[in-house]
């Protein structure tokens, strides 16, 4: 196995694993939709880094983390619903990108290009993924409790504001990483699909996140290995495999739910 393939596989496994793990929390909070606008906010950053020849992450992360902080801040100050705020941020991201992005060079930003990932970028992707996994593990039960009832969470000493902030930062980090793997357009799929697949067939919390991580990571390994066989870009193949897992989970859940006759 050549070194580039190892770097691609390692970074794919960490990015898709952390995205799927966070995705289970986002789905239970009905927040997977937030990932989409945030991922589009990576476009202006990616455009700048392509224009001026920086590493992709130096352009992407400041924009997406800045966007997350802005959503959190505006959410507190304006009391506007998160969906509305992210839609505004989304429009700002795409609008700005279309003004400055050289369209002929946009492919890398739009659909990702993990086959060219460098050693330094792989290292950064692994470190950021581990940070997200630690954040999510710390937040998991607390956010689940907030999902059930925010007042009970507050009474039990959970600082819901700080947790919302940490949560949005985690989403921003995963979205930034997702740009490498699948590009700006379909990053949300990395968080939404494995969680949806798992929710269809899980009845406990532990199986929920385990199945999500398994299908997320399996899809990305599959994508990295299968895409070159068809000279296809890796990102879209990963998403297609994820969708196949999701379809299978729908069928399995229907079989489980259908009462046996006789």
């Amino acid at each position, binding site marked *: 196995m050549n070194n580039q393939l190892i770097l691609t596989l390692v970074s794919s496994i960490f990015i898709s694993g952390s995205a799927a793990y966070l995705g289970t929390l986002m789905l*239970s909070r*009905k927040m997977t939709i937030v990932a989409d606008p945030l991922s589009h906010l990576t476009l202006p950053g990616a455009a700048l880094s392509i224009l001026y020849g920086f590493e992709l992450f130096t352009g992407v992360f400041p924009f997406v983390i800045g966007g997350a902080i802005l959503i959190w801040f505006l959410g507190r100050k304006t009391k506007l619903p998160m969906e509305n705020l992210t839609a505004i941020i989304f429009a700002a991201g795409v609008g700005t990108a279309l003004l400055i992005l050289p369209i002929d060079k946009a492919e890398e930003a739009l659909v990702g290009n993990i086959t060219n990932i460098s050693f330094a970028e792989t290292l950064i992707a692994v470190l950021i993924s581990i940070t997200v996994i630690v954040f999510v593990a710390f937040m998991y*039960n607390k956010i*689940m*409790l907030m*999902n*059930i*009832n925010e*007042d*009970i969470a*507050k*009474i*039990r000493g959970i600082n819901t504001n700080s947790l919302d902030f940490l949560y949005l930062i985690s989403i921003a980090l995963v979205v930034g990483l997702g740009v490498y793997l699948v590009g700006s357009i379909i990053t949300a799929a990395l968080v939404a699909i494995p969680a949806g697949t*798992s*929710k269809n067939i*899980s*009845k*406990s*919390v*532990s*199986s*929920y996140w385990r199945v999500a991580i398994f299908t997320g990571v399996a899809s990305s390994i599959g994508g990295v290995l299968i895409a070159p066989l068809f000279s296809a870009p890796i990102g879209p193949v990963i998403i297609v495999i994820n969708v196949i897992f999701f379809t299978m989970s729908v069928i399995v859940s229907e079989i489980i739910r259908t009462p046996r006759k006789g």
Partner: protein
Amino acid sequence: MAAIFLQRINWFGDFKMNIPLLKVRNLSVRLDNELIIDNLSFDSGEGDVLTILGPNGAGKTVLLKTLLGLFQYEGEIVWQKKFRMGYLPQGLNQLSVKELPLTIRDFFNLSDKNLSKADIADYLNMVGLPEEILHKKASNLSGGQFKRMLLSWVLIGKPQILFLDEPTTGLDIGGGETIYSLLKRIHDKEKLTIFLVTHDLNIVYGYSTNVLCLSKLGYSCFGKPNEILTSKTLEDMFGDHIKIFEHNHQIK
């Protein structure tokens, strides 16, 4: 608007100073600039069941949440010391967890991941639920089972004060009575102090030490149920279409 202030009966006799568990003085709460609670004063003692009674929109839930520290207020709320508090909010039912893949065991471990299976089973038994439901999905419980499970979920935190906001909403008469007889048993055994929001006058007469009544018009009253819950006070609270039949028997 007249502020109410009625000193709690001193159960230990006049010779001993009894510091109330909770002292509320001139409490006012505004939400989005609307005055919800205006100049309210009352006391509550340890082991009391204080029922908060009143029509929809009178501020019962707001009062409960203010006492729990969830809303800002003007006036004074003084607790005798720091207590462990348990809270069952209004409207928390099996539909609240419909979208979550949570077993009953998961549900308990959300608040304390160190709780063992045996600990949880003990508390489930206390409310008459079998250990086998531990692995059942929380959203698959019936309404009555879910309420009983919630009660054991709150009790496992060993609260000294329980805040219950209409704990039987959505249950039929039988289900509601089961919850209240469970509560009475637990109250007697654990010597809990309970703050209870309910519309059910039978419960008010049967279980309350004191009643605090609130109305949208700013009317409020405080005292022992059979002393203050007259046709007149109920009319002032709910409007003149309310008719009551007084009864003297106790719910066992």
